[in-house]
């Protein structure tokens, strides 16, 4: 095992990005990563042996090279004998190595099952065509947090994601934390995460789900339990109707097309078919990772969503410049 770990670093180059299986920022990710190191190490060793064997055969063959074609005389059976033994040794060695790797896999599986056994925090993630609906479960109904395209996790605790889908098959994959699980309509699967390092990571849908499969990302923020508690309480706070400059934007949001699909806690707008916007301004990105959150990007997205994410289900709502400015001002207040 240690020998494999030595070889590995030179093969998985570069520090792990925010969306990389090398990140290993959770117990699950680390377990899988270590198993991958074992497999990679064994694979490199086996490959080296095969190449050496091939090279020797080619070199020996080069010495006996010949121009003329045709039969060169059937090699004597005595010459064949060592190769028969070699074949048996090779086959049994391969079987033994594979058996060892199967045992390593089984051990990792058991450890993964144990790591995800009990989870104080339950989160339901529902895949839709090209965005994620995230619901933090709580026995008290009023404390259920509904958000979209973002996932906050307390470090050092296990969180269980219950994965569902509203339309086609998606796949929740946070490479830094753990492996992926498909979200299949009509079925429920689960994914346990036990982050060990704080930071922001990026998850992405890993099963082709249509036109905007490429822009279906999720911001994962791992923070200390205290910060997580603070974020959780902030999410529970509904958004009252604002005064001043944002009031015009609020009126547009409630009376025009926005309220038909989107919901903002504490206001009449309660559409369920599009992401919940109660605390949209507190998120890092817009439209499932398509644009980083900023005032200009909000304006750019709302004015023409089809330009940013062609084919997504948000229509181009006809807005004048002033209406757009007012609406964006209102959205900025939804911290």
């Amino acid at each position, binding site marked *: 095992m240690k020998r494999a770990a030595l070889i590995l670093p030179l093969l998985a180059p570069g520090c792990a990005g925010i*969306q990389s299986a090398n990140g290993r920022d959770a117990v699950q990710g680390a377990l899988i990563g270590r198993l991958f190191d074992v497999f990679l190490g064994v694979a490199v060793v086996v490959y080296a042996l095969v190449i050496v064997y091939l090279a020797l055969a080619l070199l020996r063959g080069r010495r006996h090279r010949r121009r003329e074609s045709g039969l060169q005389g059937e090699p004597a059976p005595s010459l064949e004998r060592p190769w028969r033994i070699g074949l048996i040794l090779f086959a049994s060695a391969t079987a033994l190595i594979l058996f060892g790797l199967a045992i390593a896999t089984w051990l990792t*599986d058991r450890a993964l099952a144990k790591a995800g056994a009990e989870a104080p925090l339950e989160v339901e993630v529902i895949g839709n065509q090209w965005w994620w609906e995230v619901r933090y479960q709580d026995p008290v109904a009023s404390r259920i947090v509904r958000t979209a395209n973002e996932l906050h996790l307390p470090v050092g605790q296990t969180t269980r994601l219950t994965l569902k889908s509203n339309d086609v098959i998606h796949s929740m994959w946070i490479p830094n934390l753990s492996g992926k699980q498909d979200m299949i309509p009509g079925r429920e699967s689960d994914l346990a995460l036990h982050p060990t390092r704080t930071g922001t990571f990026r998850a992405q849908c890993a099963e082709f789900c249509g036109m905007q499969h490429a822009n279906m990302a999720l911001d994962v923020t791992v923070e200390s339990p205290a910060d997580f508690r603070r974020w959780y309480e902030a999410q529970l706070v509904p958004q009252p109707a604002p005064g001043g400059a944002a009031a015009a934007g609020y009126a547009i949001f409630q009376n025009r097309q926005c309220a038909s699909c989107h919901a903002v806690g504490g206001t009449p707008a309660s559409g369920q078919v599009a992401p919940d916007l109660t605390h949209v301004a507190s998120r890092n990105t817009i439209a499932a990772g398509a644009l980083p959150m900023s005032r200009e990007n909000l304006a750019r997205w709302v004015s023409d969503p089809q330009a940013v994410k062609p084919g997504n289900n948000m229509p181009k709502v006809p807005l004048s410049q002033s209406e757009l400015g007012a609406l964006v001002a209102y959205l900025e207040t939804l911290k």
Partner: protein
Amino acid sequence: MSEERPRDDYLRDGPNLTGAELDAVLDETWRDGPGLMGWIRSVDHKSIGKRYLVTAIVFLGLGGILAALMRIQLSGPGHHFLGPDRYNQIFTMHGTTMMFLFAVPVMDAMAIYLVPLMIGTRNTAFPRLNAFSYWMYLAGGTLLWVAFVLNVGPDAGWFSYVPLAGPEYSPGKRVDIWAQMVTFTEVAALAVAVSLTATILKKRAPGMTLARMPIFVWAILIVSLMVILSMPSVALASSMLLADRLVGTQFYNSYELGDPLLWQHLFWFFGHPEVYIIFLPAAGFVSEIVQAYTGRQTFGYTTIVLALCATGLLAFGLWVHHMFATGLPRLGYAFYTAASMAVSIPAGIQIFCWIATIWTGRPRFMVPMLWVVGFIVTFVIGGLTGVMLASVPIDLQVHDTYFVVAHFHYVLIGGAVFPLLGAITYWFPKFTGRMMSEGLGKVSFWLSFLSFQGTFFPMHIVGIEGMPRRVYTYPAGMGWDTLNLISSISAFVFAGSVILFVANMLLSMRGGEQAPDNPWGAPGLEWKAASPPRPYNHAHIPIVLDNTPLWNAEQPVAYGLRVEDRELVLTTVLDARPDLREPSPEPTAWPLIAALATTVMFISSIFTPWAVAIGSVPIGVALIAWFWPKGPPHPDPVIE
């Protein structure tokens, strides 16, 4: 009707009728008709095989162009070269074309052309069924590509997971056309499999017992049985998908007791044997090439044949490794991990035997041998990443990422296309009577080999670094930019090398130096026939005494077959004792007409389910006319 007494007034080959005189008569009997009608009516396995090969290489080119377009779009983050809709159509068409329209048909092409020559007979069994299968394959490919040109190309991936490919989330006729194309190519592959199985079992030269068959013929027999047992699965799945989309059945509708995973089970039950259907003929090529260029029979003949059988058997037991992320029970997965790992043992054994053959033989490093070495170096990497993918936890990280894309390109291009290019170079003299140029061959090999590694090795790293599969673009600053650029540039060099190879083929077809019957001094029976082979392949049916007929001093032949009508000998299955004289069907256009009727029925059934009932009447008429004996009844039967 009393016992069939052979009337002596028929002209038969033998000591009194041999050499040039026999050649004239046999050529007259077995030749294709002249001109276009002759071409359409042909049932000669060599012309059908060549047609399959040319069509498959055309589809390889088309699929390659799509790959180039994808690499341009992915060469950097956020490119707008292709929109999402067009890119999704392109990657689906790339996968579908390469798997259904290139890989399986090209192996069929080589098998149809070479198997009758290698087992010493004059045509495949059921040659008209072969002709029918080519027309169905051509119709399926044309349907798909015409639809793609008309913006009706499928866009749900080459395995079209439901419900995305279902009626609600794939509006229009795009996925219907994909599903119907699968039906076309599956009918074609099944027809070829049936005819090859019967050919190999019943038409071997007298004396060629099962233990003396060339390894390539063994590979094709096992592949044919795998096609027969796996293709019905995709036929059923795509018909159920078409029913869901057109007549409202509920197979995959999770709201009405259906299950999207039913599609995945049925598709991958076919999907995984399919990739072994592509790899095993390539393993057969390598065994033949290594045997010819090291001047000795491939080491461990029985071991390799058993390894081929083991691969064929195991292939049916590991399809769930494509579904490790779908949340099925973990104990079931453990079985599939074991099976997926176990399937690498037969492949490893074959690699061991090939290298042992090179070690103990006296190799000549011609171009085909370079392709074999390139194959071993590349395929072993693909095999090892395959073992990684067999382990569930690792697969959960790398499934549907560019790591998997790298894996299957290593085992499909490295494992099947490299041996195929070597095999084309090796048998080119037999196909065309001219040698491919050594120099150009070496250049295109090294160019292909190196640019292949440059294109696909970085994909391993990009996959581990988190880039999912089938994304039409990706954000900047994820650490994927340079690796994708390297892949894109190498991809163009690789495309260039394949074009160079095809150019070498085209140039050598006319300008190559004349090839003798057996330029490599190889032991197989196909090298006993002329280059290019006469329409009747062998003047006299050869008799086989051991595994390497042409290296045996004794090369006896049989005689006594009729020469003015198409006739060849059937032998018993196990030890190939001569058993019957079998008339071989005459050329006819009915297979084309039946294929056209089937095409009309298949395509119109996309638009209205009634077409299935109405459309099957012309097919029935065409098939009856195809089988109905024509002309006056012959006492000694001839299939008109």
